[in-house]
């Protein structure tokens, strides 16, 4: 069961560096909270999990094109 998201961002067809750069800004603005991301880019299903692993944001659930991410709390 997915916890209730605090915000939703529909990124549409945005992908690659453009997507993760905007995602970075949004997650940094909501530490500890959950973002529901909708990203229809064909690469998102590989990219979003990879991005979360690298940046230590918690990917709670991936059901492309939807992703639930808990934003990392800064150390």
């Amino acid at each position, binding site marked *: 069961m997915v916890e209730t998201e605090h915000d939703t961002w529909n990124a549409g067809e945005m992908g690659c560096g453009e997507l993760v750069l905007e995602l970075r800004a949004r997650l940094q603005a909501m530490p500890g909270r959950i973002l529901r991301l909708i990203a229809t880019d064909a690469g*998102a299903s590989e990219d979003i999990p*990879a991005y979360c692993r*690298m940046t230590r944001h918690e990917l709670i659930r991936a059901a492309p094109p939807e992703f639930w991410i808990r934003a990392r709390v800064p150390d």
Partner: protein
Amino acid sequence: MAGKFVVNLTHSKNDPDKATVAFVVANAAVASDKDTVVFLSIEGVRLSQPGYADDIHEEGFAPLKDLMTNFAKAGGKIYVCSPCFKRRKLDETQLVEGAVIVGGAKLVEFMGETCPSLSY
């Protein structure tokens, strides 16, 4: 021997020589037990479509189709640049063996802190 290796390929039929040599080198890497990725970008993404490489056969080399098939069978991975793929309106439901559409984050994660790479 362990480690990673990335071959970035930006060409296909616009430069079949480069496309072929890229996979020859990639096969050498995967044969050397390297965790190997061929990153298809720019015109290279066309090689992700089944049949596209069928008529590429440079003198002195194996046919590109065979090089790509052998690469995938040996465990090599093919990352296909998502925005490059999208702008060429290719078919994401039809990809050659071993290919997956990715964005930059997936490639960045794979390469990590240290990863040799070549670009063709």
